[in-house]
C-alpha cells in the first residue's frame, strides 16, 4: 500500500489537535469529569459567595489546583479528605479577598509546585514544558525526512520511465525476444513434425 505523505501530515496534525482538545477537556471538566463535579456542585449549593466573580474564582481554583493525595485529580474531582480541607481553605481565602494568584501561591508554599497543574518553568519542570514542543519538532523532521526519501526514490525510478506507462524498456525487449523465441521454436517443431510424416 502506498503511504501518501500528505495523509501522514494530516494524521500528525489530527493527533496533535486531539491531544490539545483532550488537555482542554480535562481543564473544563466536561464529559470525563462530569460526575464528581455534580457532587461538588451539590455541596457548593451551601457555599455562599458575595458575588459571581468570587464564585467563578473559587471554581477555577479548585479545578486548577491538584489534590496532593489523589494525585492526578484536581481538588474539584477528588473525594479525599485532604481535598475537602483544601477546598474549604480556598473558600475561606477567596472570601477573605485573596486573588487567584495569591491563593495559588499560598497552596504552593505549603504543598509545593506539585499542586499546580501548570507549574513554573524550572530545571525540575523543564522536561514537562519542553518535551511537547521537542516532539512536535522531531515529528516534523521525521515527516520531512520521509517526504525527501520518497521524492528521491521516485526520481531514481523516474530515470527508467519513458512516459506515464510503468513499462520497462528492458523488460519490453526481453518480452519481445522471448516471444520471437517461442515463435521460432513452434515453427521449427511444426516443420520437423511435418518432415517426420513425409
Amino acid at each position: 500500500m502506498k503511504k501518501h505523505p500528505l495523509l501522514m501530515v494530516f494524521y500528525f496534525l489530527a493527533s496533535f489537535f486531539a491531544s490539545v482538545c483532550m488537555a482542554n477537556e480535562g481543564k473544563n471538566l466536561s464529559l470525563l469529569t462530569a460526575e464528581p463535579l455534580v457532587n461538588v456542585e451539590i455541596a457548593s449549593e451551601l457555599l455562599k459567595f458575595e458575588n459571581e466573580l468570587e464564585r467563578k474564582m473559587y471554581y477555577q481554583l479548585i479545578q486548577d489546583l491538584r489534590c496532593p493525595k489523589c494525585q492526578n485529580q484536581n481538588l474539584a474531582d477528588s473525594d479525599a479528605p485532604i481535598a475537602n480541607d483544601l477546598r474549604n481553605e480556598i473558600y475561606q481565602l477567596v472570601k477573605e479577598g485573596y486573588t487567584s494568584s495569591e491563593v495559588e501561591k499560598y497552596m504552593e508554599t505549603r504543598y509545593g509546585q506539585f499542586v499546580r497543574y501548570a507549574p513554573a518553568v524550572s530545571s525540575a519542570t523543564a522536561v514537562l514544558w519542553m518535551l511537547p514542543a521537542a516532539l512536535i519538532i522531531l515529528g516534523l523532521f521525521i515527516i520531512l525526512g520521509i517526504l525527501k526519501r520518497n521524492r528521491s526514490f521516485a526520481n531514481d525510478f523516474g530515470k527508467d520511465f519513458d512516459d506515464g506507462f510503468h513499462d520497462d524498456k528492458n523488460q519490453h525487449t526481453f518480452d519481445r525476444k522471448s516471444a520471437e523465441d517461442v515463435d521460432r521454436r513452434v515453427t521449427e517443431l511444426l516443420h520437423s513434425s511435418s518432415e517426420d510424416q513425409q
Partner: protein
Amino acid sequence: MMHDRIKLFIPLLIFFLLVAVFFLLQNRMVTGEYDPSELPSALIGKKVPEFSLTTLGDDTVVKTRDDLVGKAALLNVWATWCISCRVEHAYLNQLAERGITVYGLNYKDDRLEANRWLERLGNPYQFNLFDSEGILGLHLGVYGAPETYVLDRKGVIRYRHVGVLNQNIWESKVLPLGLNW
C-alpha cells in the same frame, strides 16, 4: 535485504528494554527506595509554621512553635484512624527510649480516643499538639498520616518522610542529615 530483516527486531528490542526498566523500577518500589507518589515537602529548609494549639493531654495548655525549638527532634503526624500509624508506633517508642526527642501532631482526631491510644500503646511523645481541624497540618503541607518531619535544633524542617518511619528510613534518610540527637 539482510539489513532490513534486522530492523524488524527493533520493536522487540524496545519491548525488552521497557521490560527491564519497569522491572528495575518495580524492584526499587518494593524496597521503598522509590515512591512515585511521594512529594518533596515545600518546607524543607524553612521553619515550622507558626501555630498556637492546645496539647492532647490538657486542653488548657497552649503550645507554639517556640516549644519545638532547642533540640533536634521528630514531629510525627498521627491519628487513631490511621492504621499505618499503629504499625509505626512501636518504632517511635523505641526511638523515645533511645533518648530521641519526638513531638506529636495529633491530626484531625478525637481527643478521647487519642489519649486512650497512648495509654494502651505507650507514649513516645514529649507532648502532642491537638490539631483537630488540621490547621497546622495544612500549613505544613500534610496530606495524610503518618508523616514525620525532622527538625533541627532551631526548628527548621530538614526532612519530611511520608509513610511509616522504620529503622531502614531512620538509617538511610534521617541519620545522614548529621543532626545532633
